[in-house]
């Protein structure tokens, strides 16, 4: 009969300074007793895979930043020149930016159409 030794789990919180950036483990016995996730980019995978519609910023954008404020995933990035870029690796294509854009300068295009050319 197998005996498991749950004491094997790594104490992830020995001290404030030692709190890890990411939990490392060889097998499940080393996992801390509750499921935790330390927030790092992409901890749930590349969520851009979920997208059906892709937001595309048109040339007439006046750089007001409203899309940047409204994006629930924080994937709209303000560049040094003040213009905006969308991180398509993580953008789920919810369309909130397009809906909120006051000058209608974000267009939602079907991914399959883009891929088909």
């Amino acid at each position: 009969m197998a005996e498991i030794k749950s004491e094997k789990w790594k104490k992830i919180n020995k001290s404030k300074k030692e709190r890890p950036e990411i939990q490392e483990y060889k097998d499940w016995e080393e996992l801390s007793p509750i499921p935790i996730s330390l927030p790092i980019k992409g901890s749930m995978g590349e969520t851009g895979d979920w997208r059906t519609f892709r937001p595309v910023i048109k040339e007439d954008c006046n750089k007001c930043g409203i899309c940047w404020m409204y994006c629930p995933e924080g994937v709209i990035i303000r560049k040094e020149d003040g213009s905006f870029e969308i991180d398509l690796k993580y953008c789920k294509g919810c369309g909130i930016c397009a809906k909120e854009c006051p000058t209608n300068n974000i267009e939602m295009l079907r991914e399959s159409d883009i891929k088909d050319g």
Partner: protein
Amino acid sequence: MVETPKDFIQKEENVIIKGNVAAAYAAKSARVQVISAYPITPQTTVVEKLSEFADNGEMPGTQYIKVESEHSVLASIIGASKAGTRTFTATSGQGLFYMHEMLHWAAGARLPIVMAIASRGPAPPWNIWADFTDVLSQRDTGWMSAFCSSHQEIYDEILMSYKVCEDHNILLPKFVAYGGFILSHTSKPVIIEDQDKVDNFLPPLLDEEGWPHIWMDPKRPMMFGNLIMPSGFYQEFRLKIHDAHIRAKEKIIKAAQEFKQLFGRGYGNGLIQEYKMDDAEVGMIIYGDLALQMEDAVDYVREEGYKVGMVKLRHFRPFPTEDIIGVAKKVKLLGVVDRATAFGSQTGGPVSCEVKAALHGTKDTANILPIINGLGGREVTLEQQKNQLRKLVKFNETGEVPKDTIHGTLWDCLLEVK
């Protein structure tokens, strides 16, 4: 740790208090840091006494959170416990059912919360009196559960519970249950221990570093208990909870030993407490307040010349399987008294089912006679308990199942309409 003003430092004293007040004193002695509770009969006076302590400044390091429901009680306590504080709450019957969702969250998050429960019967029919169906029906939430049979035991068991729950290799929440009104609202002498002694017994309060498995730090945020896909570690995390329960047994035994050394009061091995079982031919397994009176019943029936004994079940989760097997090897017949129901199960009583399951596969163990009595706070007299023992003796001698069993279980003292 916040220093207690000199006038309020607890010295050892013998006071006559209600069971609920004993629970409140235990929380105070344990230097609980966050309390959240919502009043419900018969638990209400726990809350009242604690708010009195907090208001008087007798618990200067304690935050008292007022909320609008039991669901929020446990939600707020879970948050407080995650931050690394010692937490306490209390409830009863319907209030416990309202907490049910959060009970799973507390156990799944491995938070050592201790909850006093003045047990009451579930409605309908509406009922506020002693019946352990409330706590026993939370069987699979992952909480440990203990039963007390005296006022002193309520105080003592809460202290022992913190010791076990906060062990860094256990980290589980626990119920400490006692019969509503029978213990919660009657007064008896209770020894409240010296604060220094309690401080020595319990693990120290955590510093700002928090528990070893979890932290709350706005500068270093963390997400816990989030989604695990079917291919992820869900099954392994569940196994870890079960494993912690099994390992908690030896910690409970150790805590009971240490408690006895330090304070001089012992409760069997912590998991079960035997009474006159060594030379007994038949025995009774019983839990909660009725166990104390059963000791008297055993003495009386022994005077009649019958070798009877009893076992007080102190813990239901983790279930002391090995100890119960040990007891069942000593005698030929065991009665198992439930003051609770498990409808549609093999016996109708939750603990008798559990005892039967524990004995399965082990040879030369006792037969089981399940007994259900005292539901909804109905009085169980000493005479009734003596008769239960006499029925066991007769069953053992003749081999005839008592005539008044229904579906194999003795539903003792059903009302007769005259």
